[in-house]
């Protein structure tokens, strides 16, 4: 279909990465700047980066998804200030390939290199040490935003700060984020030593985690919650730190292209292979694998930043039906009660928890940003009615304990839960409507949450 802006639109079937939401809409893939300069029509629209959001953040039924795939270039680099300007379709992996030879990296980035910078800004994602590094917005100096009603806008913490903060963590609802200036940090060496220290309970793991976040460059826990019986919550504290120069390998690690990852590719298996038995086996296998890291193992920085590259088959094991992730920040005082509630529930209604991982978080809550003080615990499970029932149970516990769920990780999360947990949800809606009264930028996520 030819559109008024001269760039063809194609009917397209979209699916969220967790397989939870499917929609038919239109996809447009501009490859020239005249598209952004031209007169964009008022079709309900949303930007699309890598299309890897767990929630349906980059598509809308009957709406238009504008792909940034062709806008993936490095535009400027200030070596004095370590600031790089990129088009936001660039992947984290491509950006890392640019930064790493210059002794730089982005401390805040999610675990797969195929994710786009635009997606990271829109969801204001976190990295491997949120307590120290904050969220992605802390690395953003400026964004270029295109909106049909407002034209091209340059936003920064100094220039239109309110719109800047609404855009970084605004789920793409303020406009097309076309370019960004990002502040990189020094990577003293492209090698990281990873240590996995065992612990005997979830609570013990969380306590270790709080200390590790102060000292290590990367820190998170892995828990075995595949059974609610003995051994529930045991796991490893995984810490990564840049290797001291004298112990570093004498070579420079190569940085391979990130393996292809897509929602369709993830769902290739017609039937799920993860059930209670295979999940227990998988968890046992992972525990056995971590033995090699007890005394520390040196890995390339890229492998530490993007651990999912070597484990992405995990997502395929869920098959076409998909999976669910529940990630939430709990105040420190509530973590023990939360874990007890999970264990009690699983005793009564067993469910294969395929992955359980925690990080410490710090910061004040603002708008719909996933941040705050406490422990962020993520749980994965195969999709289905049992999972949905469990997640509704978790919704209630989160409200009860004063936690917040991660909006970008859950394609099911109801508006009522978001409104109950995010005190600024109303302000987010009001500010967004004041900027865009027609609400042109919409997605499945925004429709569900009435944003």
């Amino acid at each position, binding site marked *: 279909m030819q559109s008024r802006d001269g760039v063809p639109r194609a009917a397209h079937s979209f699916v969220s990465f967790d397989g939870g939401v499917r929609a038919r809409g239109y996809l447009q893939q501009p490859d020239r700047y005249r598209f952004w300069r031209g007169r964009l029509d008022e079709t309900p629209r949303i930007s699309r980066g890598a299309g890897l959001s767990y929630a349906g953040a980059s598509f809308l039924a009957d709406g238009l998804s504008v792909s940034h795939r062709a806008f993936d270039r490095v535009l400027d680099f200030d070596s004095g200030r370590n600031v790089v300007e990129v*088009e936001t379709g660039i992947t984290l992996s491509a950006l890392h390939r640019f930064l790493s030879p210059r002794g730089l990296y982005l401390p805040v980035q999610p675990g797969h290199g195929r994710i786009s910078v635009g997606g990271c800004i829109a969801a204001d994602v976190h990295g491997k040490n949120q307590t120290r590094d904050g969220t992605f917005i802390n690395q953003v100096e400026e964004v270029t935003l295109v909106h049909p009603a407002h034209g091209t806008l340059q936003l920064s913490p100094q220039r239109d700060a309110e719109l800047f903060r609404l855009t970084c963590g605004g789920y793409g609802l303020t406009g097309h984020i076309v370019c960004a200036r990002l502040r990189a940090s020094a990577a003293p060496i492209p090698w990281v030593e990873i240590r996995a220290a065992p612990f005997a309970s979830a609570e013990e793991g969380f306590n270790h985690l709080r200390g590790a976040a102060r000292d290590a460059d990367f820190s998170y826990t892995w828990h075995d919650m595949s059974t609610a019986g003995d051994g529930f919550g045991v796991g490893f504290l995984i810490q990564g730190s840049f290797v001291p120069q004298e112990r570093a390998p004498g070579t420079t690690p190569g940085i391979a292209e990130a393996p292809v990852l897509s929602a369709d590719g993830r769902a290739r298996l017609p039937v799920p292979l993860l059930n209670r038995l295979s999940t227990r086996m998988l968890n046992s296998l992972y525990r056995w694998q971590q033995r090699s890291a007890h005394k520390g193992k040196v890995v390339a920085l890229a492998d530490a930043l993007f651990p999912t590259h070597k484990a992405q088959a995990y997502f395929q094991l869920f098959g076409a039906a998909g999976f669910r992730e529940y990630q939430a920040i709990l105040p420190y005082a509530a973590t023990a009660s939360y874990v007890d509630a999970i264990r009690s529930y699983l005793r009564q209604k067993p469910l294969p928890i395929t992955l359980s991982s925690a990080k410490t978080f710090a910061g004040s809550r603002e708008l719909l940003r996933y941040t705050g003080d406490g422990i962020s615990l993520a749980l994965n499970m195969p999709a289905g009615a049992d999972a949905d029932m469990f997640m509704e149970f978790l919704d209630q516990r989160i409200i009860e304990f004063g936690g917040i769920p991660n909006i970008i990780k859950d394609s099911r999360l109801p508006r009522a839960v978001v409104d109950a947990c995010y005190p600024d949800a109303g302000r987010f809606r009001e500010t967004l409507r004041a900027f865009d009264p027609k609400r042109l930028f919409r997605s499945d996520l925004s429709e569900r949450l009435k944003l």
Partner: protein
Amino acid sequence: MTALVVGASAGVGRALSEALAANRKPLLLAASDPEDLNALAAHLRLVYGATVVTVAADARDPEAFAERLSAVAAEIDDIDELYFPIGFSRRDDKAQLDADASLAILNSNLTVVAAVTARFLPSLLRQPKARIVGFGSIAALRGRKANVIYSAAKRGLESYFESLRHFAAGTGVVVQLYRLGYIETQQSFGQRLLFPVVTPEQVARHVLATEGRDFGVRFFPRFWQLIALAVVWLPWRIYKKLNF
């Protein structure tokens, strides 16, 4: 020595520019939009450390385009490779375009290639080794009711490259024309196609891998050769009923 890429800002032109830059080839890039060119040039300089000069000009005016290019080229290193991944088509090109619209398609696909080549050919012939590369289309195999002017321009381009190859025979200039099948660009986006598409990056890799080979015309991907045979030899009484 520098490579000139005409139509560098998107699709095959952009992929080719990136592949050449990765090979440390200094580049003179030409396209219509300065913003697209600046973004590409910045990327190639920063990521590959390439030497890149750009010229923004409108290919619908071939003489002015060639004039601008040769003026800029006079200021830089000698050109020894010409690449023309330039093309322009319209989905309403169905035998009813007016003269201006038809001329725009002809100029962007054919005339500008001839005009630019004419400017650089004398110096290319003086080189011990040089290369001129054109990009045809499977649309030129046999006239049909869609892409009427575009197909005519691409068939004209094939004839032009055949003549150019004959003219350059016995010199150091290798003249190549790649007949491209379905490529993942705006032209093919969203269309239901009978055969697989290839990426511009695959085209670029193939073009660089076949440097120096005097084959004249070649299909890419190669399986199009068989399809072309079938299309060309299909009896008219069947061909005329096809809706494509």
